């Protein structure tokens, strides 16, 4: 549509630039802070341009952990976070794919009941039933273990619904052709369904990876062994210490490192990320 409204174009860009600036502002400050020596923050004149201590700060945080905070080196936490995020992503996708497959292409007693049981999990965020869930995990002796850290977060109604919805859009004739071609249920799943679900799996993986990475309350509760600390937990612990003994440069370096992996995933897989987000609709 041809429409010349110069002032409106300018306003539009101004709004967007302002929005980007506000969104980016805290991160810019964190980036700047992570490149200054510890002493720069005492006065309230927080620097707004990067300093020269970036390398020192990042290598300290990554390599030897924070002085005085007794925390693990950050590289270890980053690995833990990655393991946790990947396990949760893979687990959720695996059990959701198969259960959606069972619900869509099989008929078995209590099928609708099963569907609703899974559906109910939508309504029970972990924060709400945190204490009894913690007790179950503790009773199984799963505290301080990868299983305890990831398994309770794996059941997912969201992913099951997404796959179910996608499966319902596949034409019936596809299965019929496959059956006439001699493909049984597992062969159909492997040869046809999985390859067709590739984009959906990828899109969902982006969302689930972020979900796994940003988990805070659950890992805080079930891990007391520093061996299992994730980077998100680590930052909270650093902050608690920094209140008394400000080492803001280190804290902000850790913050930047904790943000980096999921943010990069979003930026470089934007198309998949948007697809995953819009289609899961929470």
């Amino acid at each position, binding site marked *: 549509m041809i429409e010349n409204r110069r002032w409106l174009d300018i306003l539009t860009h101004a709004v967007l630039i302002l929005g980007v600036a506000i969104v980016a502002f805290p991160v810019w400050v964190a980036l700047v802070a992570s490149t200054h020596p510890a002493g720069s923050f005492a006065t309230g004149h927080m620097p707004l341009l990067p300093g020269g201590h970036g390398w020192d700060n990042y290598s300290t945080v990554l390599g030897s952990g924070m002085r005085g905070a007794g925390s693990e080196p950050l590289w270890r936490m980053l690995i833990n976070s990655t393991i946790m995020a990947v396990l949760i992503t893979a687990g959720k996708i695996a059990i959701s794919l198969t259960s959606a497959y069972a619900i869509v292409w099989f008929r078995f007693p209590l099928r609708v009941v099963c569907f609703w049981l899974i559906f109910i999990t939508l309504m029970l965020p972990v924060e709400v039933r945190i204490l009894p869930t913690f007790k179950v995990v503790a009773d199984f002796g799963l505290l301080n273990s990868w299983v305890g850290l990831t398994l309770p977060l794996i059941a997912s109604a969201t992913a099951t619904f997404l796959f179910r919805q996608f499966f319902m859009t596949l*034409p019936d*004739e*596809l299965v*019929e*052709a*496959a*059956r*006439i*071609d*001699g*493909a049984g249920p597992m*062969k159909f799943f492997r*040869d*046809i369904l999985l*390859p*067709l679900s*590739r984009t959906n799996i990828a899109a969902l993986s982006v969302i689930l990876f972020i979900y796994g990475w940003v988990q805070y309350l659950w890992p805080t509760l079930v891990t007391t062994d520093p061996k299992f600390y994730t980077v998100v937990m680590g930052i909270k612990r650093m902050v608690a210490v920094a209140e008394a003994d400000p080492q803001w440069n280190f804290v902000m370096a850790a913050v930047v490192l904790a943000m980096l992996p999921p943010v990069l995933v979003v930026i470089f897989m934007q198309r998949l990320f948007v697809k995953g987000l819009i289609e899961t609709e929470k």
Partner: protein
Amino acid sequence: MARIQIGALRKTYPGARADTLHGIDLSIEDGEMAVLVGPSGCGKSTLLRMIAGLESVTDGEIRIGDRLVNQLEPAERDIAMVFQNYALYPHMTVRGNLEYGLKNRRTPRAEIDARVTEAARVLEIEPFLDRKPQALSGGQRQRVAMGRAIVRKPQAFLFDEPLSNLDARLRGQMRVEIRRLQRRFATTSIYVTHDQLEAMTMADKLVVMNAGRIEQVGSPMDLFETPRSLFVAGFIGAPGMNLLPVEDLRASGADLTGLPGTTSVVGIRPEHLLPDATGAWMALHVTVDAVELVGSETLVHLGAAGLSAPLVLRQPGAARLAPGMPLRVGLPRQHLHCFDAHGLRIAQDSTDPALRELESRLDALR
């Protein structure tokens, strides 16, 4: 190759009040092309899918060759199916699509390659073998779907409205091509369509279905010339047969002498109506409503007081008629189809002496 026999086949969907199929008997000879035609919901697709093994059998039996296949999996029935939306595997190449069924049957590699090459050559799809279905046009996809059936060398081909997604011109081409291929491989085939033109042109054996029952089975010309029921008369042929209730005729002042006494509806095909009926035995005074020039022929829509539905008259070439013109159309005796109150054809072998007498007088007049 095989003969397909269906005996007293019934289908009732769980929870449904009425049967979808009420006892179908049908036999399709080896190498024959049978076309099932009927309006949507008549059960033709259900019947095909039961033969394919995609729907369970409520009662009755299906035999392919000598085997009773009621309980067999689709893959075990040795049939191939071509679907309306092609149902090609979108993530596989054309070659992958053709090979999949053979691989699942553990056909030796050399045999697979030979069959795929042969099918690709026959269907002229060799250039696309390594492309994905999305990269193909509708007609090309249709060929691949055919190819997937051919490479299997099955006992029977089943076609479920395979041409409905194509445009009219392509449909015409593919019709001829499918028939050519079917003859070439001499494979018993069942073809489902709702398009009576497709049905007429492709069938060796035409099966007209309605409301879960077979209305009539026979060669296309049989059904065209002697439709057994009002339904078949109206369904086969385009434009459809003019069907005139006897009361309408009487109300329009037509002379009904000589019609069988039980006649309730009189039918006559558009091409058999005479535009100028001076002296004809049965005639109607009508007015031209509309004139459709198709090029090679003209369709004239006619209305008259007392007629509940308009008449259609077909004439070769361009008719010099304009809307509003009055006309006296004749209904020649020998082209009339008479149906009774149940919609069934009344046999007219002209044994009635009065009728014969009338006919000879008519001939003399001409």
